[in-house]
């Protein structure tokens, strides 16, 4: 039986989701691919748990939840963190789930490049290095002859990157327009259904854990702009970086604008547009009942192609297991092609 040894880097919501999903799906993956996946290390921002013989996924999550640190993992807890973990154990694939950093892309950038240098495959949910240095990172993976997959970086569980590359392989992609941020979609949906003001709904969303304490990345469109860059590079072959995207968030949208739009049968949504002559994230009017009319934290995207015309996808854009589902799918596709 083949074996794939993985390291989970980053043990917040996504990293824990991957551990949980792996423990649920290990047997299925073995059946489907004939490969046994073994977690040989997991690391949070300050510590790790490392064992060449494999760690227990559920115990990793339990340790992190109860003790706050992976170094508290029985017997195999360690103070090693960051890139040192990649040197401490033999592995095949890095599952990189550290938080997105849109300033200098670290630590994801150096971890990923180091894994490539070591000849290892990487699956990521991170947007920072892809939004700032897409060409460099993808180029490094090609040069090293390793697999680099990033489905989870856009749209959580909503299939879009692999879907467009593989399932729509016969088509040229003309443009992609969609709702790529669940938090803002939730806020705008509630403003529409309740007629409340932005500040009120934002506060409630924070209390519900849908919006973060510092909501800037979501409400100012930064998160959606990162995803715009990733789609532009990976699916339309546009050599763009974060600074090429025109960005306007939703913080100026008030209930009056929403009410006026409603009167004409429109909704206001934060729309990301990816086309050769426009990379833009901005509030836009969408017709009620159109494919853009999805509410709550859902994400959606309409892919305009030459042969198939328009194809739309919808799915949950965030969440621990939802994002992990995309990463596991990436891992499975690596197992299928390489083992």
């Amino acid at each position: 039986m083949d074996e794939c040894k993985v390291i989970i880097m980053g043990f917040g919501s996504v990293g824990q989701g991957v551990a949980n999903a792996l423990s649920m799906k290990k047997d299925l993956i073995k059946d489907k691919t004939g490969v046994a996946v073994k977690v040989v290390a997991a690391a949070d921002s300050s510590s790790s748990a490392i064992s060449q013989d494999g760690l227990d996924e559920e115990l990793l999550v339990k340790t992190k939840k109860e003790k706050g640190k992976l170094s508290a993992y029985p017997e195999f807890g360690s103070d090693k963190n960051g890139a040192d973990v990649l040197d401490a154990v033999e592995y095949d694939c890095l599952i990189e789930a550290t938080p997105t950093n849109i300033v200098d892309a670290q630590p994801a950038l150096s971890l990923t490049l180091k894994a490539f240098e070591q000849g290892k495959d990487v699956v990521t949910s991170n947007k920072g290095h892809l939004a700032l240095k897409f060409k460099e990172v993808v180029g490094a993976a090609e040069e090293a002859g390793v697999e680099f997959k990033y489905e989870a970086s856009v749209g959580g569980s909503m299939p879009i990157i692999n879907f467009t590359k593989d399932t729509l392989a016969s088509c040229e992609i003309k443009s992609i327009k969609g709702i790529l941020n669940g938090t803002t979609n939730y806020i705008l949906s509630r403003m529409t259904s309740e007629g409340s003001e932005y500040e009120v709904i934002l506060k409630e969303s924070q209390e519900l854990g849908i919006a973060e304490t510092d909501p800037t990345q979501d409400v100012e469109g930064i998160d959606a702009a990162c995803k715009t860059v990733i789609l532009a590079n990976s699916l339309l072959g546009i050599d763009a970086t974060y600074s090429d995207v025109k960005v306007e968030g939703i913080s100026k949208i008030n209930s009056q604008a929403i009410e006026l739009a409603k009167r004409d049968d429109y909704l206001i949504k934060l729309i990301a547009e990816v086309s050769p002559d426009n990379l833009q994230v901005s509030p836009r009017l969408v017709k009620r009942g159109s494919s853009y009319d999805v509410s709550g934290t859902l994400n959606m995207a309409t892919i305009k192609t030459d042969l198939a015309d328009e194809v739309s996808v919808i799915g949950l854009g965030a969440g621990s297991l939802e994002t992990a589902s995309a990463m596991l799918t990436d891992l499975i596709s690596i197992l299928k092609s390489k083992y």
Partner: protein
Amino acid sequence: MRINLVLELLDSPGQLVKALEPISVYGANLVTVIHKRDYKNENGKVPVQLTLEGEHEDLKKVVDRFEELGFSIIELDGVVRKEKITTIFFGHIVDQDLRDTMDRINKLDGVVIVAFDIKLNGEEKSTALINIEADIGKKQTVFDKIAEIAEEKELLVINEV
């Protein structure tokens, strides 16, 4: 039956031939064609006036094919065809010379504001929804003008997808 229509063609070689092809393919007759290459519309395209004769069904197929091929039909039987554009402005709309904003949009050839709905919010920024009708093919000109006004007057624009 007969129909009169005005198509817009790109000013590049072979466009007229490409436009005439569907007419014979679907068994319609070309009665008149007026094509003056030295006259161009605002958008740089060349208008071609056609009169066609044939069965209703065949003529419909020809018109559909024109649209499939991406030729804009700007006039059909003397009626100028319109596109509807809806947009929202947010900002100091009145203080930033509302009259001027409307005039500049209305001054565009073949473009007219048909409805304007504003919500005032005391001294705060106000919100307005504008419905515009534009001749076919003028949409981008309208969007460009709106973007220009918005930048100058610091207004947030919410355009249609």
